[in-house]
């Protein structure tokens, strides 16, 4: 699943990578960036973190012309009042101003990271911004993918829930449990069809920043216990006969059952309208049938 997401074989317009200090996710983000450079016409990289510049060094010289870099580091809180990207600026406007957007161009965005925005601005604002950036109509270009990093150890759960609700894929880094693998992540992907995929995978990142050796981590506990395969046939060793031969079955079918009347009466009963009752009375020998009308003395 992770390989497909990075390569763009599985479509996800809004991808969120959640990392922490122990399990950094910037390597994975670099993989996305490289893959996007090969797939689309223009990649906008928005950097809010001090170290995120290093990500740009990953891109080889040939393809880095596609990258438009927006750096928030110079003037984060707009104290210099420059036109550089700051936390208060309208991201969609900034990208439109610096990039070359039109309908025919495929555009992608890489944001490293959302944490500054989440801490300085209200959470719904960040969600609305993300949603707007991924909307092709609002951006005036065909937005292929928006990949954003967020440091989940910096935020409370309710803020993260809101951001996760907005995005289509959440990739969270986990401590690795396999000696042969460097990284592990838990992916929640909402497909366009509405199907939900939850998967935990181990993987390595090569020197060329490609994902390799992906192995799915199967959940160890299988909730349904295995049925015993050899079922004992209870009719095997019996002192009496339980099964019927064909001849015996035929004989059984000819036995006249009680209350199964002749065909004419069956039809008479069945032809009645539904819900209407009719009384069939068959007096037996011991029955004392009174011929007299019991209501004879009544003046009715």
């Amino acid at each position: 699943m992770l390989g497909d997401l990075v390569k763009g074989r599985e479509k996800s317009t809004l991808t969120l990578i959640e990392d922490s200090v122990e399990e950094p996710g910037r390597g994975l983000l670099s993989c996305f960036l490289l893959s996007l450079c090969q797939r689309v016409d223009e990649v906008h990289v928005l950097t809010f973190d001090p170290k995120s510049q290093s990500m740009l060094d990953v891109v080889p010289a040939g393809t880095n012309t596609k990258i438009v870099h927006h750096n928030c580091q110079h003037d984060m809180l707009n104290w210099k009042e420059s036109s550089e990207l700051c936390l208060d600026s309208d991201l969609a406007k900034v990208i439109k101003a610096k990039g070359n957007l039109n309908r025919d161009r495929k555009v992608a965005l890489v944001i490293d990271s959302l944490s500054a925005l989440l801490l300085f601005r209200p959470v719904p604002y960040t969600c609305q911004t993300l949603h707007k950036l991924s909307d092709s109509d609002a951006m005036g270009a065909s937005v292929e993918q928006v990949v954003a990093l967020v440091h989940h150890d910096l935020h409370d759960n309710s803020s993260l829930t809101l951001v996760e609700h907005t995005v289509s894929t959440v990739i969270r880094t986990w401590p690795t449990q396999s000696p042969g693998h460097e990284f592990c992540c838990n992916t929640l992907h909402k497909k366009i069809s509405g199907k939900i995929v939850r998967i935990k995978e181990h993987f390595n990142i090569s020197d060329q920043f490609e994902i390799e050796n992906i192995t799915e981590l199967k959940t160890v506990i299988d909730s349904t216990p295995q049925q015993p395969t050899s079922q004992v046939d209870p009719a095997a060793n019996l002192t009496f006969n339980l099964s019927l031969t064909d001849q015996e079955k035929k004989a059984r079918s000819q036995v006249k059952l009680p209350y199964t009347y002749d065909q004419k009466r069956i039809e008479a009963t069945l032809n009645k309208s539904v819900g209407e009752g009719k009384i069939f009375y068959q007096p037996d020998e011991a029955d004392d049938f009174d011929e007299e009308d019991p209501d004879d003395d009544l003046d009715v």
Partner: protein
Amino acid sequence: MAATSFQRKTRAKNLQIAGSKPSLYNNQLLISSGIPSLDSILGGGLAVGSVLLVEEDNFGNYGRLLLKYFCAEAVMTGHSLLLSSADQSPDQIIKELPAPIIDDPGSVVTRPEEEGSEKMSIAWRYQHLPKFQSNPTTVKFGHYYDLTKVMDPALVNSCDCSCVGQTDLLDGDLNGVMNPKYRCLLKTIKEKIDRGGFSTAKVQEKRNILRIGIHSLGSPQWGENGGFCENHEDLDYSLPRFLLALRSILRTAFGVCIITIPTHLFKSATFVSRLERLCDTVVHLESFAGSDKEKNPAYKEYHGLFHIRQLPRLNSLTSHMPDTLDFAFKLRRKKFTIEKLHLPPELSDTASRPQEDAVPNLRPGVLSCEMDILSYPTYSGNFTSQKTDSNVSD
């Protein structure tokens, strides 16, 4: 003798509006939600002037589907429609409405007969009885839709439909008691009711009904911060105020509103129950997608649980009570049905049932909000009464 102030009660003339029928319980005017099985659970349909709150499933897919059925039904009955969404473009939702299945009721009736062609030898009395259906389908009220096809655009365009999307919601002043987006939406609804002549105050020659669908209200796209103000401490009262205002507008209008709210985003349970109290009917969809219940054998044939949180009490102290509150829904290509939740028959030969331990909670939660169940309708289904055929005494 002085003239009394009493007047002979004249039978109020029932309004004849396309796609509506009077309720069998209290003569309220009902319209179909677009899902016949949901209608029957809610007592026949959605009462005109009421608000249905759908608490969305975690990923919102089924909530959106319910809304689409509701909108499709508006197109089919010729009702007016007002659709609003901040998460998606409402025009896109309108374009993706499912195509109606016109000849469905007939095919449903004929099918059971083909299946039950096998002749009964012992229980022959039951042979001519119609096959029992757990969810009675009303023929002329509500439609079935085929999810694999989209509705004909010409048909969609015949509907008087207005959309309120994210961009329409932007204008609105910030100072006020309510989130500007909610205030803007409320204003649009009020204007639509006044302009379209849906208000009960206006005497109208020909009445129509306004269906209002609001998708994912209270999501972050509306500027809602999980029910809290920006400081994460005080509750934000915008949404309850909006719901209160909306309900009071609808009470004097020929309108029905469906709202889907992602209540799982609200951390405060009090806040959610406050929202529930401000709507008439509240249902909660719990999808199995992405949860452990997906693999649970008890839920094998269903896609999720359908919880009823609140039933409407309109002009009376009681509400219509369905004979069970355990429901589950399943989605077929041509049908979205809500059924009574049954456990599947135990078919294994072994007496021990290993899955019993793995499934500690088979019964979904019972009604979680207090309701005055003053009278429980004595249920005498036609199933039993038909079967009491002439019994022969020995």
